[in-house]
């Protein structure tokens, strides 16, 4: 299976362990990934300021991806939401598409609209399939409770993002379950992590994050699992900063999904970057059961 890989801005700069872990997992599953150095910002932050510029930035990436004639796999949920949003609007509004293509033409690019955009989790769940994933699992977690955080920009607006059922999302839970961990039931699993307001209204961003974290803790979670660099930075870097400031020890560690999956597939924890978090999640490995799964 072949995909073009879209990393976005945050992952290479601030969450390199996400791409390392995702690449390692893909390698084990026989997924070939083509990176494109010419990719730029998906447009997500620009949408606040000017929607047209947001569309141009997104469209350039989509135009480049189209040339590869492979589906586009996105790791970041905000990038995913942005690219899907742009794709939707450019399909609905031909006049805007024309204006966008005028700018793209300067670099001999054209966006035609023939690209399939998928989030990493969808690739695992739909394209690889749970059956094949399960077959690759070597050891399983025991007594591990995971709060799977869905990520709003992938989930909503569902008509556009087509990621999962917005009212009762299950895709992420299925992926968590196959590792042997329990995907806990918690009321705030589809709610925002607060990252979009970090740097704008930090108190509110913190409040939103803490509500979500305490909900997960109350539901018994050992870790919160994410598949988005924004959510990750929020739950790792921002949470740890606040905890340090307050001298708080009751933190909830964040684990990126490919790290969670990678460990049970037998991938080395240093390859997965388990040690590179600000909130230590090394105890994750202690949940691995010793006995090898019987085929």
């Amino acid at each position, binding site marked *: 299976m072949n995909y073009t890989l879209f990393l*976005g*801005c*945050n992952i*290479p*700069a*601030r969450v390199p362990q996400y791409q390392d872990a995702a690449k390692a997992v893909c390698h084990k599953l026989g997924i070939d990934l083509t990176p494109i*150095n010419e990719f*730029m*910002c998906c*447009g*997500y*932050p*620009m*949408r*606040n*300021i*000017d*929607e*047209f*510029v947001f*569309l*141009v*930035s997104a469209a*350039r990436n989509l135009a480049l991806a189209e040339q590869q004639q492979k589906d586009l796999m996105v790791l970041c949920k905000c990038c995913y939401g942005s690219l899907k949003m742009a794709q939707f*609007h450019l399909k*609905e*509004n031909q006049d*805007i598409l024309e*204006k966008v293509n005028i*700018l793209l033409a*300067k*670099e001999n690019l054209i966006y035609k609209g023939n690209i399939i955009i998928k989030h990493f989790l969808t690739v695992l769940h739909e394209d690889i399939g749970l059956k094949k994933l399960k077959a690759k699992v070597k050891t399983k977690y025991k007594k591990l409770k995971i709060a799977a955080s869905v990520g*709003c*920009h992938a*989930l*909503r*607006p*569902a008509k556009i993002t087509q990621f999962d059922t*917005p009212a009762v999302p299950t895709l992420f839970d299925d992926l968590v379950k196959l590792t042997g961990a329990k995907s806990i039931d918690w009321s705030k699993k589809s*709610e*925002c992590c*607060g*990252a*979009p*307001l*970090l*740097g*704008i*209204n*930090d108190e*509110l*961003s913190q*409040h*939103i994050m803490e*509500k979500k974290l305490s909900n997960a803790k109350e539901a018994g979670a050992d870790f919160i699992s994410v598949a988005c660099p*924004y959510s990750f*930075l929020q739950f790792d*870097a*921002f949470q740890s*900063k606040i905890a340090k400031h307050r001298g708080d020890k009751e933190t909830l560690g964040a684990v990126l999904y490919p790290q969670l999956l990678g460990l049970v597939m037998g991938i080395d924890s240093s390859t997965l970057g388990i040690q590179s978090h600000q909130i230590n999640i090394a105890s994750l490995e202690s949940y691995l059961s010793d006995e090898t799964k019987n085929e």
Partner: protein
Amino acid sequence: MIFDILFYSALFICTIGTFYKVVVWIKKSVGYENHLLPSHRFSSLIKGLISTIFSLRFIHLIQSLFIDVLFQKRILKTSTLRWGMHLLIFIGFIGLVFMHAFDAVFTEKLFPYYYSTVNPFFFLRNLFGLMVLTGIGIAIYRRYYLKPARIKNAPSDLFAILIILAIIVSGILLEGLKMASVSEFTVMVEDYAGLDYEDEDTLALETYWVKEYALVSSRVKAPFGNQVLALGLEVHETNCMDCHSPNKSAFLGYAAAKLMSPFAILLDKINGVPILYYVHILACFLGLALVPFSKMFHMISTPISLLTNAVQNKDKLFNENMMTKQLMELDACTHCSTCNLNCSAGMMYESIKNDYILPSEKIQMLKKVVSKDQLNEKEFKTLFQGLYICTNCDRCTVVCPSGIDLKSLWLSVREKLLAQSPDMPFILSAFSFVRGLNPMNVKTRDYKAPINKAFKTTTSVINKTEPLTIGIRENETNFTIDLPPVNTFSHCFGCQNCSTICPVVASFEAPEEDLIMMPHQIMYSLGLGLVDMAKDSAMIWNCLSCYQCQENCPQNVTVCDILFQLKNKTFQNFQDKGQ
């Protein structure tokens, strides 16, 4: 005598200029202030240098000297063409400076039998010249012909190309004309061979030189008799050969002599050789004198930048030498545009056409800020917009061939501008995410002030502006649009689902006070045509864009999208106001 006066004057200007630059590095600042005295900064610099030299990091320094400075690996990583170009100029120019320009200092000491007209030196001089010329050719081809999108050419780039071109071309022409000049020939014959110009031997030698050495003479013309040539060769072997390798081995000079041959006699008569000589040395001295004031200063500053970054602790974003380092790094920028080609905000530049979105142009502007200190309001706003429309992807830092720590520079300059004029609504966009992680450890007061101010400004802008119409927007480029479906707010029947489900609304005890208006009220206001009122709301800036409202609207009102559009309008008004 004149040579010495000119040379030492140029060297003096170059030295004073370099000294001035170093003083600027220690005195001025471009980023977030730490209010350190120049004397303190100087002593920190010396301390830093000493502690580096007498530590294990010294090994990194030596390693970097070979890999980054001499081999220029960072250029190779980004483009083989540019690496080839730069290495050709670099090796060629160094070769010429040491072997040719300072031959009395270096070459003669190392090789006692050195003569500039004897091989291998005669040939090498031309080879080095050819390398520089080829490199310059590639540079011109890349900058002015290939011209990839977002490459930027400044007058300083053209000057650098022209001054090197002037030095090399005048040198080649001088060598060529010296070969062709009969007056040069006469002087040499009389002074070194001790022959009289009217001698039969001299005529034979001249004939031989016209045939083999590209000399142009009015009294010797082809066809040449074999006897005369044989005699000429004999005289040549006795008197000239020891100090003159075949002129053909100096292939560029020889080609120039052949090209100039139709006019060589005329050029010789009007003292072409001394004229070209002065053109050549004046070009060299001009280049030397202007080193600190031109792009060529990168010969000094870029190696310093590369070496500093090889030993600097990257995790420590702020230390006592930060300000000094940032100033030095501004000078290390060669304006090569590699950053621009890799900038994640490239398409934002293409749509907004604000040059300062591109890293290389930000550096150019910051250089001006350092020398000018004061920007007018428009310059300030444009620079700030450029600095803020940055996704902090750090790619510019990763690719910069000069190893400049651009990432830290942007963070730091942004804070400085925000401290100077906190009236910047851009801070209310998702571009602030990295600022929110506060990697600079900005003081709480400095961190909060611009955010608070921006919240105030955005509402005051709204109060003063003309009524706005959702769904229609044209600016001068005709490129700005609102995304349909527009005006879905008119479908709202007031169930308040949006506000009930909104996590932001739920976070406030008295949302109607803190947020001024809740989502459903914004939709009502828009429906009633009270757009100003809708935009006054703090709700739009506190929106998480989680799309819960839109997803749960029974009437398919695009609530969240509309909040985005309202934000867009405020930014639009803010920029228009500045123009």
